């Protein structure tokens, strides 16, 4: 049986494991951590962006664990990502000539899956595996949703984090379903705090990989912030299939919202960052956090425009740029200060509203 190493997209790796189980090969799941960063930075060129280095680190770790095959998707778009797979191929020839590297395109995905499985596959099998994986991905996203809701409201700090870990341990073993996970979350005791609302925009890899973004979800949640993200894996799948027009957040509306600031695409998620920030501003969120890898081409182009939106809508903005040297305490400090600032601001605004609405008789 072949062992396949994949880019570990945060918790989604637990869901992707299902593809291997269905089609007859093993997928190595190994959470991204400090060690991954070190290995990735060691094997990749210095100037490339953080996602490249981290995925390289994932491959290196998996190969140490005995993986034989690696794969990456061939991309399309103005972001550097379209070139990733070919640079990986070049570097693999130098570092690990024994390991075979597959590039997955729309034209050849069946061939690649057949070489991995070692037997002929029918489209029915592939479709069944894909649907099962999508169900698991949906579950992962629901777990994240609940964690965002429960974490700012929890009575005992750290309880939600514990529950999430329990859930994913069950999922890795292949046990549990929607209702077992839901029951686990319902057992968390909550207090009646009104959390602040924060939207998170930025580059997709940093949004969904807690090992690289220093567990930003946890940091924000523990400072009593309910967070929301538009860019997630299932949403991207829908966008790829052009089904996003049936959802509340279609590309068309995003582009329309971004129009006054950014008229064209800047590749990657640059345009949707701008559009989503306007959307958050219109929905009455209290603040926006923008995540980007160091020197990310699309997000660097979008950042001055986000600053402009922040001024125009009077919406606080925190931009965090990550590279392999980023430390958790550095991010923690900035996030905590940002949340405190928003709370102070809200309290002040509430006070002003109260005094304005009171009549003179009530004051004296």
């Amino acid at each position: 049986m072949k062992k396949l190493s994949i880019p570990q997209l945060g918790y989604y790796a637990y869901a992707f494991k299902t593809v291997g189980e269905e089609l007859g090969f093993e997928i190595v799941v190994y959470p991204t951590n400090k060690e991954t960063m070190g290995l990735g930075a060691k094997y990749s060129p210095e100037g490339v962006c953080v996602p490249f280095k981290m995925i390289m680190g994932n491959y290196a770790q998996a190969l140490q664990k005995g993986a034989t095959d690696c794969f990456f998707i061939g991309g399309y778009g103005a972001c550097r990502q379209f070139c990733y797979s070919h640079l990986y191929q070049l570097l693999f020839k130098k570092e690990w000539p024994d390991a075979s590297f597959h590039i997955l395109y729309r034209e050849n995905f069946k061939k690649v899956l057949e070489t991995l499985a070692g037997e002929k596959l029918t489209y029915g099998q592939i479709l069944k595996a894909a649907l099962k994986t999508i169900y698991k991905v949906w579950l992962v996203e629901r777990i994240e949703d609940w964690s965002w809701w429960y974490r700012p409201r929890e009575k005992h700090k750290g309880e939600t984090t514990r529950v999430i870990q329990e859930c994913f341990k069950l999922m890795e073993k292949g046990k549990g379903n929607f209702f077992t996970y839901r029951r686990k979350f319902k057992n968390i005791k909550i207090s009646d705090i009104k959390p602040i609302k924060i939207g998170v925009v930025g580059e997709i890899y940093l949004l969904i990989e807690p090992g690289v973004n220093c567990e930003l979800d946890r940091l924000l949640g523990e400072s009593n912030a309910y967070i929301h993200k538009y860019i997630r894996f299932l949403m991207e799948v829908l966008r790829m299939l052009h089904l996003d027009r049936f959802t509340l957040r279609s590309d068309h509306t995003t582009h329309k919202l971004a129009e006054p600031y950014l008229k064209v695409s800047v590749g990657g998620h640059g345009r949707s960052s701008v559009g989503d920030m306007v959307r958050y501003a219109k929905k009455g969120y209290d603040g926006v956090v923008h995540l980007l890898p160091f020197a990310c081409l699309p997000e660097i182009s979008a950042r001055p425009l986000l600053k402009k939106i922040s001024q125009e809508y009077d919406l606080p903005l925190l931009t965090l740029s990550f590279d392999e040297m980023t430390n958790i305490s550095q991010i923690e400090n900035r996030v905590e200060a940002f949340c405190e600032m928003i709370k102070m601001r809200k309290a002040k605004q509430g006070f002003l509203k109260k005094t304005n609405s009171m009549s003179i008789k009530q004051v004296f």
Partner: protein
Amino acid sequence: MKIGIPRALVTLKHLKLWTTFLEKLKVEVVLSPVTTREILDQGLRYAEDEACLPVKIAIGHALWLKDKVDKVLIPRYFSLYKNEWGCPKFFGLPDILESYGVPCVTVMVGREYESGIVFVNYLERVLMDLGEKLGKSNEVSEQAMKQAIKAQKEHEGEMEKNYQKLLSFKKEKILLVSHEYNLYDPAINLGITGMLEERDCAVIPVDWIPFKFQPRHSRWDWWMRWDFGTAMYERVKKLIKKVEGVIQITTFACGPDSFLCEFVSDICNNAEVPYMKLMFDEHTASERIRNRIEAFLESLRMRKWK
């Protein structure tokens, strides 16, 4: 009407085209000077701190032009060849400059890849669009367009002549690999061409090598999709047997170059030609570069002597 053209970024590639076209339309053209310390400082103050040096300089140029002209011409360089595209920083530059309060007039160069429209004679279409945006009649802009394209072609022919002359020299030939805006801006490359010529080398800038784009149809040999990347890769591949050394100029935090350097150095390794990568940013001192060039040339000569 006064229109300013910044002497920075990709506009440098088609400088002759834009200036002749606007002059023939009887529009007053103000060309920003070669980058000075003042312009660089202005750019550094306004631009994003993680942006690359050429973009910072371009923002400095546009801010210098801001008070002197009615509008600044910043073309959006989407793509120069079919199914290829440029750096995303070129696409968003007009929007970024407008957020800094610079009045811009933009025109799409190539196509927007999302809409899927492909221009066949892209430069002609681009110039006609620009003429329409400036409120000129079709006949006037068509005449100006023809003269502008002729001037640009003459300029390119001159470069080719120079290239043939350079190849016949009996000196050591060094290939300088980079983008146009790094090769011709002394504020970025600190006069590296002069330094090499002082030490008795014939310097061949990579964009002097003639190149004709051939559209590719198979996915497998269609992996390099930056227009400048394709041109650079093919040109280096063409000339690698005829040169003694390759020097690549990159700037700090340049996205495409972080990938391109690896591919160019791979070609050089396969052909066994010495390769050096020089990284520049706003703090680079010319002494450091001089040292490295001397060491590189020394090692080249030692290699020959052996």
